[in-house]
């Protein structure tokens, strides 16, 4: 099981069912996960394509999408920020 967090406009189109998911065995990296999410939820996939999306793995910025994911990880999907 991994925990997925969708922020901002991605949160608007992500169903609650994606909050906690069991990933199939072939989903091993962040890159795999992003593709899998886009396949599961085409609307969310298009939203991630339309805007630069950063991935955060266990609260740290993931610069390399080849990073492996493991059971218990938390992965967040961040569209462009607008603080201040």
């Amino acid at each position, binding site marked *: 099981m991994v925990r997925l967090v969708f*922020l*901002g*406009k991605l949160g608007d189109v992500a169903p609650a069912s994606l909050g906690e998911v069991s990933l199939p065995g072939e989903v091993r990296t962040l890159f795999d996960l992003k593709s899998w999410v886009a396949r599961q939820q085409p609307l969310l996939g298009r939203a991630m394509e339309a805007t630069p999306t950063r991935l955060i793995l266990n*609260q740290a910025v993931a610069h390399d999408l080849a990073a492996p994911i493991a059971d218990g990880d938390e992965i967040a999907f*961040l569209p*462009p*920020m*607008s*603080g*201040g």
Partner: protein
Amino acid sequence: MQIRIVQQSFDPQAEVAAFAKGRDDAGALVSFVGTCRAATDGMDARELRIDHYPGFSEKEIARLAGEVSARFDCPDLLVVHRVGAILPGEAIVLVAALSTHRANAFDAVRVLMDYLKTDAPLWKKESGPQGGRWIEPRAEDHVRRAQAEKGMA
């Protein structure tokens, strides 16, 4: 350095007063307050909602504040950022700096605001009569961010 993300409406002047209290060693206090406007870009914004990513948002804002603090030799920084549903007239963000020299305090507050606009993990949505829209940094925010980075702020 004090960084706080708050869910409830806050009084920015009371925060600044508490921050500066008893600090008669620091002669200069600069503060910025960003308030939810009644109207933005011709749109009648009825409500603003700000999403955050608990834990990560605080950590990233603290990292940005740390960079600014080191660069301008200004350790005494305060950031209070509101999240959740915000009404017109309510404070969204407060950044304050205490320093012995006013130039440092001005630079620190201004540059930290530039950083927050583009780099703070927060997401703003305006809801009005025409529905909602997510706000993204404008081109000028990115220009300002790049200038701030290069020391042109």
